[in-house]
């Protein structure tokens, strides 16, 4: 996914000379193609994320479209106040990119597990929050973020994530799009980010009758599209590599409640949330291992009423 991100950003930067990339001394063997092509629009600011977010704000105030890139919690939680106040309150053209979403850097431990940042970021006004599901979606989200002048957050995995969409597909997102991956039956799985491959494999391999939707945008989510889905399914399973509180599933519940309260939805579907339940895991483990440990997994029982 990070390769898809940098390739797309490099393509966009060829056309848009305002694109600037800052890194917090991370991105070895990722950011080099961009740095070589655009040395005047690339800068390693050192291991100083608060300063990086501030510098990005200053550059954006002068018309640049600034991407800041680092791992997991560093460009997000470490500089949360700069994100809220400098970037989002001033509504600046800054895109925060975190690699290593969820347990992608599993064995590196909780310091490198990005499992709370969606919850924190999605409460911040003006910020668009994105978590693409595979390299094709990553390309499309990157292109989307290059085009908008709003502040954005992009959660990506690491390198080598498998494709879910056909690798030649070119998606063209508009804000809040929900993607139909597969339509089948009365149950649907709503997927946030890089869990997408796991979900499609599980459903295909077990020949389960279920629809799958990918949510590359966590905020905002297209409400009209969502309402249609609420009306179409009796049961919805949300799955995310994130804490259950204030995460993707919470966003879905909030929106469902709003639609009910507004009188747009009569009989709400049952919603099962699969997420991390208020825990840190301090054992080494691959992403797959930690997902199992945190019980972020589907079972065949989930698809029974």
């Amino acid at each position, binding site marked *: 996914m990070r390769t898809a991100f940098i390739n797309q950003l490099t393509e966009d930067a060829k056309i848009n000379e305002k694109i600037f990339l800052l890194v917090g001394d991370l991105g070895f063997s990722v950011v080099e193609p961009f740095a070589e092509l655009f040395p005047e629009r690339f800068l390693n600011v050192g291991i100083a994320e608060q*300063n990086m977010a501030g510098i990005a704000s200053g550059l954006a105030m002068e018309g640049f479209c600034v991407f800041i890139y680092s791992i997991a919690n560093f460009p997000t939680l470490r500089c949360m106040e700069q994100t809220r106040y400098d970037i989002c309150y001033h509504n600046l053209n800054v895109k925060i990119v975190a690699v290593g979403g969820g347990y992608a850097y599993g064995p590196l431990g909780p310091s490198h597990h990005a499992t709370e940042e969606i919850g924190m970021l999605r409460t911040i006004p003006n910020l668009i929050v994105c978590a693409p599901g595979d390299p094709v979606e990553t390309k499309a989200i990157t292109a989307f973020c290059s085009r908008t002048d709003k502040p954005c957050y992009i959660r990506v995995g690491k390198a080598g994530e498998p494709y879910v969409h056909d690798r030649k597909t070119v998606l063209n997102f508009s804000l809040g799009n929900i993607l139909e991956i597969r339509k089948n039956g009365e149950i649907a799985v709503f997927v946030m980010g890089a869990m997408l491959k796991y979900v499609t494999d599980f459903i295909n391999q077990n020949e389960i009758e279920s629809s799958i939707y990918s949510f590359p945008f966590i905020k905002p989510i297209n409400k009209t599209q969502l309402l249609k889905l609420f009306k179409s399914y009796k049961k919805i399973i949300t799955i995310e590599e994130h804490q259950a509180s204030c995460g993707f599933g919470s966003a879905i519940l909030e929106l469902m409640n709003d639609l009910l309260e507004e009188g747009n939805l009569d009989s709400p579907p049952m919603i099962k949330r699969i997420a991390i339940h208020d825990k840190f895991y301090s054992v080494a483990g691959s992403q797959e291992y930690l997902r199992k440990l945190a019980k972020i997994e589907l079972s065949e029982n989930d698809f029974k009423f």
Partner: protein
Amino acid sequence: MKLDTKSILLAKAIRRASLEMVYNAKASHIGGALSMADILAVLYNDILHVYPSNPEHSDRDRFLLSKGHACSALYATLALKGFFPVEDLSSYARDGSILLSHTSHHIPGIEFSAGSLGHALPVSCGLALAAKRKNAKWRTFCLLSDGELDEGSNWEAILFAPQLKLDNLILIVDYNKIQSLGNVKDIIDLDPLNEKFKAFRWEVLEVDGHDHKLLKNTFLNANNLNDKPKVIIANTIKGKGVSFMENKLLWHYKSPSKEQLDSAIIELSKP
């Protein structure tokens, strides 16, 4: 008439307007507003290239006030220089007013909303870098309090600016030696502050922050493009200009009574 008379009169007007604003709003932070009044007067009278009728003019110098809590003095300066009507100052901190009691970028002439300390200097580095990348001639000025140098984010920026040779960045420290709960030297001592900046490869200038002639000369001396960012350590007195407020921690918080306001204004009216 001496050359610096105009800025001295401006400083008096800034002090008077600030006092009235905090009195009317029953607001805090008059001490830190008074300590930087002379710096603002000299900057806006003699140094900054700004365009009050076109605040977003692309060639303007960028001025960022990091100690946003002392904004009454900046609002007064901007109004007195014609960025917005002086009458608007009476809405300071009132319900529905855009004149928040921390700087707001929604006000003409204000580049950046501060309030949380340690934010404006990194942003100023971004502005100075943008000017370098665009070959623009304007400069970035950033005014910090001494207490906020406790914030680590400032030191990230202080490390960064010389690395990028941001000689178009001028940092001013309003060194009034009193922070929120006491004397700077008793909380987190900054001394020797000039040596710290020198060690971080900044060009360091030190000045009496209330002497207009010296302030003006120091700003003019900070003009050279020698690859080094500039820091002007302005030695100031918290509450300067109102004798009963000078060097008193109390005036970080308290707003003056009517009697105190009147007495302060009489003192400021003396030649």
